[in-house]
C-alpha cells in the first residue's frame, strides 16, 4: 500500500483488498458452498458482498461465485444471511487462516 494514497477522498479510487490483511500460506479450505440449483436470482448476495464476489451474469438467472473467493472474502457471512433460498452455505475458513483484523 502506498502511504500517499490513504486520505479519505482517495478511498473512492481504491480497492478494498488494499486495506485488508490476511494470513499468508494457510489453507482456508472450501468455506463457501454454493448450490446453484437453489438460487432464484434475487441478487441480494450481489448487493451485500462488499468485495463483489457474487455476480449476476447478464442473461443468466443464477448468481455466480467468484473463483477467487478464498483469497478475497472478508468473512462477514452476509451472503449467507441474505440468501432465503439456502443456496449459500458459509462456515468461516479453517482455523488460523483467512483475514486478520489488525485494528479491530
Amino acid at each position: 500500500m502506498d502511504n500517499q494514497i490513504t486520505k479519505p477522498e482517495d478511498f473512492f479510487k481504491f480497492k478494498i483488498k488494499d486495506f485488508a490483511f490476511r494470513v499468508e500460506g494457510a489453507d482456508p479450505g472450501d468455506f463457501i458452498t454454493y448450490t446453484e440449483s437453489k438460487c432464484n436470482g434475487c441478487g441480494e448476495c450481489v448487493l451485500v458482498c462488499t468485495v463483489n464476489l457474487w455476480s449476476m451474469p447478464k442473461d443468466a438467472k443464477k448468481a455466480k461465485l467468484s473463483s477467487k473467493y478464498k483469497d478475497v472474502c472478508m468473512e462477514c457471512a452476509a451472503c449467507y444471511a441474505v440468501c432465503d433460498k439456502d443456496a449459500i452455505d458459509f462456515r468461516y475458513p479453517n482455523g488460523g487462516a483467512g483475514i486478520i483484523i489488525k485494528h479491530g
Partner: protein
Amino acid sequence: MAKYDVAIAGAGPGGSYAAKTAAELGLKTVFFERSRKVGEKNASGCGLGQRWWRDFPEIMEKVEKLPSYRDIHSCIFKIVDEDDNLVTTISTTKTKKDAERIMYKGIPRAMSGTSIYRCDLDPLLADLACEAGAELRTSTLVTDVMKENGRVTGLVTDKGEKIEADIVIGADGAHSIVAIKSGIRKRWRKDQITLIPQIDFKCNEQRLDDVIGPAEWVWFGPFCGAYQVNFRDGFHLGLGQWLDIWALKPADMIKRVLKIPAFQAMCRAVDAEMREYQIHMLPWMEKPGKSYADGVMLIGDAGGFPCPLEGEGVWHACFTGKYAAETAAEAISNGDPTTRTLQKYEAKWRQPPLGLEYEYGKEFVALWKNSAFNPEFMKKMVQFLGELQWLNFPSPIFDWSDDHMSSFNDHLGHVLDLLPELSEFAEKYVIPMKRGISDTNREKIANMISGSISAKLPGFIPDWPVKSIVRKKLGLK
C-alpha cells in the same frame, strides 16, 4: 476423546468471560478460537460504556493500561444536511451530579467510558480466563456440535477432533455455528441483523488529543448515523443497516460520510490516514432469541443480546457469559445438564441489570428504524435541530440579517412549521415509552403542574381536585 465440564466455542469477550467464570467455579473448561491470536478476527466500535466501572471495575483498571486506550467523557454529534453541510454540533455533557451516579475508588465515573481496540481487549479477557485455569485452543474452528438423543454433548473441530463436554456454550458471535447446528435457530431474520462496514484510520496522537480529546463523535444526517470511535492514535468510522432494508453496496454507504467536507477537514486536522477496512454483522433486535436447549447455552451475539437502542454488545456478552457459566456449574453439581436446569440461565439474564435492556426493546428498535435509519425523516430532523439551535441563547444575538426581533421570528416560524411533522413521529415512537418514566419523576411533574394551576385559581377552590386530576393524567394513584 477428551472430556470437559464445559466446552466453549469462541474467545470473544463473551467466550472469555464465560471461560474465566467457569474456571473460577472449579469447572474443567476449554474454549476454542478460530483465529491464531485472540481478537485477530474481531472488529467493533469498540466503546465501553460507563457502567463498566460499576460492573467490571477490576477489568477497567487493566483496560486503562492497554496501548489503544482513550478515556471518553462525552459524545459529540455532527449534524449534516443532504448537501453535506455541517449544520450544527450538539453534545452530551458532563455535570457533577450526573458523574457521581457511579463512584469507583472515590472517583466519579458515570460520565467516563472508554475506547479500546479489540486486538487489545480480547487478549486481556482471554488471559484472565487462562490465569483462572481455563484451556484455550487457538487456530481451531468449531464446525459442528456432537449430539446424543437430541442433547448437545460436545463440539467438533475442523481438525476432526471431538470434544465431549457436559455443557456447551455458544460464544461464536453473530454467525454462530453452535446456534445453528444445535437447532436452536436458523440464520437470523433479515430484520434482526445489521451489517456494518467500518474504516480504521491512523492519526497523530497529539493532534487527536488536541482536536478531539476525550470524546466519541457521531455523524448524523440523511445518510443515517455513522459513529467515529476515537482510540489513542486512531479512529474507526462505521455505519450499518438492517439486511431487510439494504439498498447500497456496503462501501458506498461509508463513502457518503467520507465526502463530507467537515469530515475531511477533521481528517486533515488529526493527520488521519486510512489503514484498514473491516466488515461485520451485528444482531440488533427487540429482545434476544431462544438462548438454551438441552446441554447448550448461547451468549453474547450468538444469542442476539446486543442493546436494542444502540447495538452495544460487549457488556452484554460478558454478563451472559458469566450467567451461562454459573448455570453450567449448577447443572453439573446437581447432575442435570438438561433444559430443566438450563432454563435458569434465561431466568438469570432476565433479571436487572441485563434484563432491563430489553424492556423497551420493541420501542427502541421502532424509534431507531424510523428516525436515524429513515433518510426522509432525517432530512426534517436535521432542519429542526439546526433551527432549534438558532433559538438557543445566544444564537439569536448573532443573526444580523435583519433587526433582531424579525430574524428571531423567522427562526421561530421555521421551528413551528416543522413541529407538526415531527409531532406525528413523537406520538408514534416516543410517547409509547412514557411508561418508562419513574414514579418519583411523575410525582415531581404532578406537583409542579398542579402547583402552578392552583396558584392561578381563586383561593376558595381547594388544591386536592386539581392535584387528583393531574395525578390521574400522569398515571399516578
